[in-house]
């Protein structure tokens, strides 16, 4: 059986190595962080050289960028979009609002921790990280994929009820 696994791992390894070179991010700007994305894609910082390009629909893309504060209304849409994406899919949390609520810590509508509701692979700190920081985030994600550690989507499936319970607590849908 080991041969099967080794082959399986070997096969997966090569794939991961190739897969990290072509990541498509969902062009879905949830909050103020979205303004940082155009500079990272266009001429000055050119994310396309790493194979990262913006794509429109959730079916086609791999990375879900959560760029900023997440209030209840956005969270409901975020969950739908996340579930529409095809595995392996990754979530990157921009800025401090996704980490601990940031400046909206006392707001009645803003959620404090993103990873309660969605499995987050990479956080990029900063109250809106600069394009360099965003690119650094992308590179860490690519390193994680390469090492096969970026399996947030598997975590979501395994403890699906935990995530759903959290979401139902907040969203009441």
């Amino acid at each position, binding site marked *: 059986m080991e041969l099967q696994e080794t082959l399986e791992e070997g096969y997966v390894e090569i794939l991961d190595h190739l897969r990290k070179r072509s990541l498509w991010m969902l062009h879905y700007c949830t909050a103020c962080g979205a303004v940082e994305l155009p500079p990272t894609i266009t001429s000055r910082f050119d994310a396309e050289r790493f194979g990262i390009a913006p794509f429109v629909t959730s079916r086609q893309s791999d990375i879900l960028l959560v760029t900023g504060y997440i209030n209840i209304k956005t969270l*409901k849409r975020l969950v739908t979009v996340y579930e529409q994406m095809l595995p392996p899919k990754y979530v990157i949390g921009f800025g401090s609002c996704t980490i601990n609520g940031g400046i909206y810590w006392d707001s*009645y509508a803003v959620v404090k*921790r993103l990873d309660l509701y969605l499995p987050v692979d990479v956080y990029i700190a900063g109250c809106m990280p600069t394009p360099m920081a965003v690119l650094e985030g992308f590179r860490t994600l690519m390193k994680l994929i390469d090492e096969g550690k970026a399996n947030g989507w598997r975590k979501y499936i395994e403890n699906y009820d935990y995530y759903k319970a959290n979401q139902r607590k907040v969203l009441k849908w």
Partner: protein
Amino acid sequence: MVEEIKKVIKGEILEKSPQRIIIKVKNDSFSSTLNALKGLSFKRLTLFTAVDFVKDNQFELVALVYSNENKILAIVKTRIPKENPEIETITNIYPNAFKYEVELGEMFGIKVIGNPDSMKPFLLEGWEDLPPLRKDFDSIKYATEHYEARNVEVKYD
């Protein structure tokens, strides 16, 4: 310009500065005042909201109307009681007041007669608590209760 307003509206008029006038009126003549102001070249309604005066247990409705010709901003204020507050819609005078009235309903709990979406959820879907912009609503308590925070101790090195 103030004289013409005085002629038309009976209410306490305070001229803060050449471009800004505050008009306090009783709540039943609120929409007639706005109507009169619209006649006097105050064509644009820039804001229509309320303020919660907890101590006198009243809401204060505030409508900001602006006149382009003579560059004057008129702030019309009136007081309405806080228990089951209801007001007439002003969309027939200023159509763009529609969304403001929906927000009044959601954030203050003021029912607006004549506005179809008056008490329907707009931003806060599935909200059971007090309307959040009322002073007696404690936002921090609500946030800490409902949204689990990340307990991490910060190391300053």
